């Protein structure tokens, strides 16, 4: 099939993108699909997911309980129709991965094994030791290789969505190896680029998580939803931000302060028991655990480290056999990056930016308000995650909504005419802009300086706790950084694998996404889930049981509006953990 024009074009080759690509061909085998990714698909950040993937399979579990845990975990900001579809389809999707060869950990009788996870009332998290995302990604990637109607554009960076008369008709992309810039047209485009953790200084996210897809959609006029909800995972390794999976606590790990005290008992999360209790203490939700850390630090009960305050994750009582069988990667990471052995030593950890609940506004089929544009996975906000995602819901989300977006895009593409040629002017403009940036002479400061300042600004202004004051300062600083970015220095003028040019384009995406986060957060005058305002400490269902939708108008300044949350069977209630 001809390169340059496709039926469905997918931006991103991680869990959601690969699942979408296969779903398109399952639905419409005659279509042709392109996957355009700035990295080889098996490098995608899905690879780093560790602990597992939630889906109801065990006897005694029920779809209702998975739905309720998800909705309560999301502080009632989840759309309940979407959650119901999600929990119903999650087992089908994980079984499909099983049929495709995913090496799920097993029970002695050969059935898939499940483990506990934070905020989940039943054991329902499927796992492949603690490299679940790695195995899931490689299974999907290797399975995708059997489809000869998938064309891959590996290491192509998408710089712009082509929009013609209100319809998405393709992308402009830059091939890293050669530097050439091309329009790739398509009848439908699916964004599956993942999150934007690199907007913050301390994150579990890989270097590639720069919010590209969010920025592409936002610039094309599609709204971003619930961007104020940024998840801090409670257990990141200091300095690197590398994630220590929640599975470490699910297998029985304890969080202790400088006195060896399991401090979570002081934060309405239950009583300490020697073995893990579901939805209690260390198995509470991530937002509450990260907030407890901040309070504990304020009391002076955390530990000083060269990289800020930390607490300890204690796995020693689990013993070497359990750690080797269930948490081999945790041990590997601790040995490599902290030079310590969790079998014998305490692991220093602190909260770390991990996941964006918000993203490109979609409906339950991944459809965005922009015709021909779809989104799935972390880049999207359906929303099943509400104000706080539960651990092990994101991998099945990639699969369920990747497949849904794939099917919806396939149906659209099968019935749509090919794009007209009006996009050529946009392509020319984009090419000219990119060439100008590459050849830019002089310039004030390096890309990295602006990036670092943006990251510090976000941590200070829109971290675990925010206020009107902190966010006003952050918004002002971000405006200044946008201005300074326009004259930033690009010292690499070459075409061949110009990673400085890519870093500049990524920074530009991150600045737009950062502004959307701060803007949405400053408008939500309540505390809910991961969005905690010191000046508005209570949840306010009367005014804010609603999704925020941030748009960028023609003058490039954002505006926000609200849309109602879909409530089906679970009216808003108190979130209860450990009691």
């Amino acid at each position, binding site marked *: 099939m001809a390169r340059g024009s496709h039926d469905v074009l997918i931006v991103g080759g991680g869990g959601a993108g690969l699942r979408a690509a296969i779903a398109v061909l399952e639905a419409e085998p005659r279509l042709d699909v392109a996957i355009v990714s700035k990295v080889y698909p098996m490098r995608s*950040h899905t690879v*780093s997911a560790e602990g597992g993937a939630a889906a109801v399979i065990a006897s005694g579990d029920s779809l209702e309980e998975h739905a309720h845990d998800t909705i309560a975990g999301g502080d009632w900001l989840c759309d309940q129709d979407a959650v119901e579809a999600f929990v119903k389809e999650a087992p089908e999707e994980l079984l499909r991965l*099983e049929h495709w060869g995913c090496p799920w950990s097993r029970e*002695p009788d*050969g059935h898939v094994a499940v483990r506990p996870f934070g905020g989940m009332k039943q054991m329902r998290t499927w796992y492949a030791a603690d490299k679940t995302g*790695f195995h899931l990604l490689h299974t999907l990637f290797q399975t995708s290789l*059997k489809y000869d109607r998938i064309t891959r554009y590996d290491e192509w960076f998408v710089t712009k969505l082509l929009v013609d008369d209100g319809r998405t008709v393709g992308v402009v992309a830059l091939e890293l190896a050669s530097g050439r810039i091309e329009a790739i047209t398509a009848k439908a485009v699916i964004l599956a680029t993942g999150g934007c953790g690199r907007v913050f200084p301390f994150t579990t996210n890989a270097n590639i998580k720069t919010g590209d897809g969010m920025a592409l959609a936002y610039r094309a006029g599609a709204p971003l939803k619930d961007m104020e909800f940024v998840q801090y995972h409670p257990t990141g390794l200091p300095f690197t931000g590398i994630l220590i999976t929640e599975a470490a606590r699910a297998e029985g790990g304890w969080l202790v302060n400088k006195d060896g005290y399991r401090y979570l008992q002081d934060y309405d999360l239950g009583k300490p028991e020697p073995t893990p209790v579901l939805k209690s203490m260390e198995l509470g939700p991530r937002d509450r655990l990260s907030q407890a850390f901040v309070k504990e630090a304020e009391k002076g009960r955390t530990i000083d480290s060269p990289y800020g305050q930390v607490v300890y994750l204690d796995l020693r009582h689990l013993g070497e056999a359990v750690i080797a069988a269930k948490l081999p990667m945790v041990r590997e990471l601790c040995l490599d990056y902290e030079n310590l052995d969790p079998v014998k030593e305490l692991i220093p950890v602190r909260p770390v930016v991990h996941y964006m609940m918000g993203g490109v506004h979609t409906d339950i089929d991944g459809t965005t308000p922009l015709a021909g544009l779809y989104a799935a996975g972390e880049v999207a906000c359906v929303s099943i995650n509400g104000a706080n995602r539960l651990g092990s819901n994101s991998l099945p989300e990639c699969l369920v909504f990747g497949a849904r977006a794939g099917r919806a895009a396939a149906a659209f593409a099968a019935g749509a005419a090919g794009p007209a040629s009006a996009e050529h002017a946009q392509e020319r403009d984009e090419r000219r802009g990119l060439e100008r940036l590459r050849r830019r002479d002089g310039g004030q400061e390096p890309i990295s300086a602006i990036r670092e300042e943006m990251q510090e600004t976000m941590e200070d202004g829109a971290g675990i706790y925010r206020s009107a004051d902190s966010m006003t300062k952050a918004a002002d600083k971000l405006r200044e950084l946008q201005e300074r970015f326009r004259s930033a220095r690009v010292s690499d003028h070459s075409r*061949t694998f110009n990673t*400085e040019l890519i870093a500049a384009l990524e920074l530009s995406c991150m600045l737009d996404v950062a502004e959307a986060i701060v803007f949405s957060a400053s408008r939500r005058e309540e505390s809910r889930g991961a969005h905690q305002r010191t000046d508005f400490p209570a949840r306010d269902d009367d005014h804010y049981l609603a999704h925020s939708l941030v748009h960028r108008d023609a003058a490039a300044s954002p505006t926000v509006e609200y849309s109602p949350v879909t409530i089906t069977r679970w009216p808003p209630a108190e979130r209860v953990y450990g009691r």
Partner: protein
Amino acid sequence: MADRITLQVTRYLPEDSARPTSRDYEIPLRKDWSILDGLNHIKDHVDGTLSYRWSCRMGICGSCGMTVNGEPKLACATFLADYAPGPVRVEPLNNFPVIRDLVVEIGDFLEKLSAVKPWIIREDEEPVDGEYLQTPAELAEYKQFSMCINCMLCYSACPVYGLEPGFIGPAAIALAQRYNLDSRDQGSHERLDVLSTDEGVWDCTFVGECTRACPKHVDPAGAIQRYKPTAVTETLKAFLLPRGKR
């Protein structure tokens, strides 16, 4: 421990020069810095034109393979302090065409990976309900070979691949075995054509460098050795038996 260390980094930009050169960068020597942290320091604070791949910085995405003091390594899982007082040579992986600086072209591997059909092949339909049962022992049969992160260190280490670029190579063979040994798979005869040729397992001279280079403790050399008798038996069966009975 001295507080500075020198990285001697290979620079190559085909637009500018026909040959690679080496450039010295003196950087801070911090005890928790990986080679990758050192390169990032150069990129962000010294020379923005240096190009290399990296992403997860936790040894799982496989992007940052390079040659460190002559050995193939993941830059993110190799630490400066282990090379003190230096200098440390940082070069692109061996046996691959270099695109620029430390970035190599790995398209050849992607083609070879596809050629070994790294997916579950079934003669029957998928079960309508539930999972294929697989005991922990059956999982253990292939699990090790499923740990490959495609980082290319084994191809860089492999003397055969260096001499005969047609050789399918350690990772692709290990991944073929990952499926051949999976109790859910019935496709080993379909992989035979690729694996049992001269450019398949028979090219391997069992030097074992691949297994030593692997950062994830996969044993590609073991996979290859283990496949050789299978290849003989399967080839004989293919020769002697009608297709249905294989």
